[in-house]
């Protein structure tokens, strides 16, 4: 059987398949369906300093080959997370990536600080959530603000730090470069696209928050392009995502330049999909006689 191991910065992943933040909770539910230790890693639901109830109104809307979500970072807050969820995650034999969101720089700093005192494998700084009015994505639009937050966060944590970027960024390559310069260990690409859906009968947006985040196969071609653009210009590794539905999509992302791939929406369509993707990658390596995935990362 093929060796699917990849090294992402200093961290070793037994395979490149990671579940994307917000689509996999803290792993408990999917662990009832299969043994999630088979995964390369898990990125947790986005955690904020304080508990958040999330957005009101409709939270999900189906679009052609996509979904829009407006969860709005519902989460228990960092302290409850550490108390209630982390012990379960720590016992797992897979990499645990804590995804952290926020509305202000201070919030981010405080949340990262508390998480950093724990044993976690990686922090994924979400500066790209389009579903929270007062912040989050704001940091991920302009290179300058992104740079500032990465600089500050890097100073307060030694835990491997990856920055999750927004496809709504003005210049994704410039932001990625800034993250690299400020000492990030990797880049996560991409969060959801800001989109709109309208209920024409009521003449109102579907979502209370008006705009919501588009994910799924619809966005794959754009996500793949962004991964490739960033890959060509930065040397820290990339976690690629956006519409990965099967192993072939995953290989495309790796060939475009992703070292690891994250799978989000696809979990909803088929709860076993990550296992199938891992298997698909193994078989592909066997067939194509690939000894290490390094051989194909960024090959196009």
């Amino acid at each position: 059987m093929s060796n699917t191991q990849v090294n992402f910065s200093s961290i070793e992943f037994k395979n490149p398949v990671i579940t994307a933040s917000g689509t996999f909770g803290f792993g408990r539910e999917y662990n009832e369906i299969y043994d999630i230790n088979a995964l390369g890693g898990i990125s947790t639901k986005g955690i904020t300093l304080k508990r958040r109830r999330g957005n009101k109104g409709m939270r999900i809307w189906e679009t052609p080959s996509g979904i829009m979500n407006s969860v709005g970072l519902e989460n228990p807050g960092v302290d409850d997370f550490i108390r209630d969820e982390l012990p379960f995650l720590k016992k797992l034999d897979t990499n645990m990536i804590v995804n952290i969101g926020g509305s202000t720089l201070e919030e981010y700093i405080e949340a990262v600080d508390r998480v950093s005192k724990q044993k976690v494998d990686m922090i994924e700084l979400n500066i790209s959530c389009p579903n929270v009015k007062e912040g989050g994505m704001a940091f991920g639009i302009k290179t300058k603000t992104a740079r500032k937050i990465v600089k500050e966060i890097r100073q307060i944590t030694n835990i491997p730090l990856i920055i999750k970027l927004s496809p709504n960024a003005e210049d994704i390559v410039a932001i990625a470069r800034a993250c690299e310069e400020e000492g990030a260990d990797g880049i996560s690409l991409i969060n959801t696209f800001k989109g709109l859906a309208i209920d024409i009968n009521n003449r109102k947006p579907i979502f209370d928050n008006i705009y919501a985040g588009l994910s799924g196969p619809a966005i794959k071609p754009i996500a793949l392009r962004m991964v490739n653009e960033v890959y060509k210009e930065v040397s820290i590794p990339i976690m690629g995502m956006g519409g990965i539905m099967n192993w072939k999509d995953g290989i495309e992302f790796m060939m475009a330049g992703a070292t690891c791939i994250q799978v989000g929406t696809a979990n909803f369509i088929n709860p076993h999909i990550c296992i199938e993707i891992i298997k698909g990658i193994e078989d592909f390596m066997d067939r194509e006689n690939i000894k290490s995935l390094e051989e194909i990362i960024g090959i196009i």
Partner: protein
Amino acid sequence: MAKIIGNEALSEDIYIIIIEGKFSGEIGQFYMLRGWEEYPLLSRPLSIYDINDGNISFLYKVIGKGTKRLSELKEGDNINLQGPYGNGFPKVDGKVALVGGGIGIAPLLYTGKILEDKVDKLDIYLGFREEAILTDEYRKYSDELYLSIGSNITDQLDINKYDYIFTCGPEPMMKKIVDMKSDNNTKIYVSLEKHMACGIGACLVCSCETKKGMTRVCKDGPVYLGEEVFYE
């Protein structure tokens, strides 16, 4: 993947689909169904209508793309289903009424079937808008079957006669029952609907604020104690 062994129209837009296989499920639970590969993207939640040795069935109403495609499937076609999911009706004793409105009757057949022997009394109330369907099926499992067509089924219901009411249907109907005064401490359980993605409690798109805090309809529900729910 499972094989469809029947998919029949009962009326213009109500169908029963029967799927071959050994399936499990508690009363009030649901499955996520997809009778297609890629499009539409999400699977559709449907309550267990009935489970027999070697098959499971769902009663559904054609609403949009997903249920339309379901309705076009034929005997012998394959279908994917995940489940059983959710926290269904409690297993109780005493006198029980099941009250369904419209397609909300779907989960009540299997509920009746399972509870029938175990409770002292099981009455079923079904409200239809235009025509009654499946009355013989529901009668099988009920001590008394009450029907309404075009009027409010709740008008026939005296909750004081029961220890438990399990209800599924339009929110105003369920709210009406919850608002009824009970001298008898009758416990009312309602089954809610929300748009879903994962169906298992991981994505939080089906969150529902209740008097006990934030809950997930797919995991903590779809069945709730009526008094804990905020109605619209």
